């Protein structure tokens, strides 16, 4: 009884029928400017993109804007960069998610379990990479860490007598995965650490009495407790990682070849390096479709997780 009354009180369900009754009331009138603005902001670019994607629109050949149907889409999908770009996007998103979630869980568990002085400082340090601009951190990685001559890693390699690795040239995608993971790991730690603090201490004590060691407690109590925050981390990171651009632009410029090009970078490449606005628009729409496919899966998986608990 009590739970059902609480539920109805917190959900906006009872408010809906009232809204439906006086649809053309002052409320509707008052929110209309912002709704209209949002709609224009969204629909105009989308409409223009749709329009551009169906015409020939190359900035190098002005005035020849005839309708070409789905030709731009065909060209984009058959572009030699499309397949590697799509694969790279998936690899990038998948690996960064994997690294940030696994390391994030482990590091926050370690931080929660260990009791040492200066924990607050360590926490701030762990979270600080998140506050650095992507272009800045990418440049720091490029010039101070990955650089084959002046980078720290090169110095380490030389110290052990090995040939320094030109990371961005030899392992471009891996390098970008490392940079982006370094940026997004703090976000995962931030969310997971706060979630871990909310784990009921009495549950842990009950598990200790039940004979569970630290690993069993982690496996049977902590991880299930973290299911929801992990879902949140995955969802938010996916949204941002699908459109990853600055890190690639400042480090490898998508190269060598298409080795570190993702879809966002490919679209940029079409629009602003080849000046083919029509094809870039087609690519943008394809990216929207791909992002939506990912979103459907994510929301299925996470939405279930969010409502289930």
């Amino acid at each position, binding site marked *: 009884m009590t739970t059902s009354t609480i539920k109805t009180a917190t959900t906006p369900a009872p408010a809906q029928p009232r809204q439906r009754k006086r649809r053309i009331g002052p409320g509707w009138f008052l929110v209309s400017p912002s709704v209209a603005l949002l709609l224009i902001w969204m629909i105009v670019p989308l409409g223009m993109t749709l329009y551009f994607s169906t015409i020939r629109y190359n900035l190098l050949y002005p005035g020849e804007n005839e309708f070409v149907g789905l030709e731009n889409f065909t060209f984009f999908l058959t572009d030699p960069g499309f397949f590697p770009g799509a694969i790279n996007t998936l690899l990038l998103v998948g690996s960064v998610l994997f690294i940030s979630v696994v390391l994030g869980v482990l590091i926050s568990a370690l931080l929660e379990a260990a009791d040492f002085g200066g924990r607050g400082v360590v926490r701030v340090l762990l979270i600080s990479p998140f506050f650095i601009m992507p272009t800045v951190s990418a440049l720091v990685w490029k010039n101070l860490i990955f650089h084959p001559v002046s980078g720290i890693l090169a110095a380490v390699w030389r110290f052990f007598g090995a040939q320094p690795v030109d990371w961005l040239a030899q392992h471009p995608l891996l390098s970008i995965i490392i940079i982006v993971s370094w940026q997004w790991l703090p976000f995962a730690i931030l969310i997971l650490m706060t979630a871990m603090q909310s784990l*009921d201490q*009495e*549950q842990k*004590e*009950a*598990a*200790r*009495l*039940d*004979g*569970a060691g630290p690993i*069993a407690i982690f496996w*049977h*109590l902590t991880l*299930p*407790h973290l*299911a929801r925050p992990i879902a949140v981390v995955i969802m938010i990171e996916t949204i941002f990682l699908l459109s990853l651009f600055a890190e690639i632009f400042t480090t490898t410029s998508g190269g060598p070849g298409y080795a570190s090009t993702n879809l966002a970078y490919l679209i940029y490449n079409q629009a602003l390096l080849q000046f083919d606005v029509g094809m870039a628009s087609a690519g943008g729409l394809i990216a929207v479709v791909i992002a939506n496919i990912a979103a459907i899966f994510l929301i299925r998986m996470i939405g279930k997780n969010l409502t289930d*608990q």
Partner: protein
Amino acid sequence: MADLKIRDLKKGFEGHAVIKGIDLDVNDREFVVFVGPSGCGKSTLLRLIAGLEEVTSGTISLDERDITDESPARRDLAMVFQTYALYPHMTVRKNMSFALDLAKVGKQEVESKVNEAARILELGPLLERKPKQLSGGQRQRVAIGRAIVRNPKIFLFDEPLSNLDAALRVQMRLELARLHKELKATMIYVTHDQVEAMTLADKVVVLSAGRIEQVGSPLELYHHPANLFVAGFIGTPKMGFLKGTISRADASGCEVELEAGCRIILPRAAEASAVGTPVTLGIRPEHIGVTDAGAGSFDVTADVSERLGSDTFCHVRTTSGEPLTIRIPGDFRDVYGECLGLTLDADRCHLFDAEGQAIRPLMRQAA
């Protein structure tokens, strides 16, 4: 068998002593209740027994086995927490079988133990539910079931009923008492509610500020409190206290002159040299009689009355300003502000010396 012996147990947190030396025996099949005001260390004592806190000094042994430094899981104890501490993502069945699964007990044995516990606690239809789908009382029963399947030597309860509403609390109290008899189990139970302590316990341990004030059966504590603290803590409404001095003492008893304005002869042994020492007289609300003003031992001014139907608790104030509560059966007209005469039942009075220790009555000493 489950005989728990605690010897000179001490526990401090960062130099601040919480448990200041406790000696206690818990015998097999006993229902022992730790009771005391909040902050008296009763929960800490239970957690020390469970092994969730490290002992500063002293020993705990169970059946001659020293378990002072044993890990919580190997002590053969099971604990029921105040918040139940059920594992939220596991079904009721899994919650109960968790300890057995960890101990790698065979599937069939786990199955039969869980089913047996579910039968005792009437949890059968709920076994596949998650804790959040259960009511408070059902969660409580699952928490108890989780303890039962482990077949522990001693059950530990940390204020298990304080999260339930009043009606359910009464019902669960009865179920716990029944469970204790059915399982023939040894139980240690922590509560701040003296009604729970009185109704459930074979043995009540009254704690205050990290020390044991008195150990005894509920009625022993009620009828023969060892000191002022126990006298004031056990019994609702509280025992009334009247300050006075011993005015005459001999072998037959002693006469106390109360500040409230009367002399009363009590059957207490006191040395003649005790004359003039300050004492406190304690009297339970049911042992005070009410008469008209001037007709009793002394007069008081009536304050408000609480009518419960079966009884009326009439609050009064003596001429020296000391509050007293009187328990009057049945109907009692409202006497707010009026002057009443009171009579005290001398045989039922308790007498405490200046240190708050009880001065025992004559008959008891002779026996």
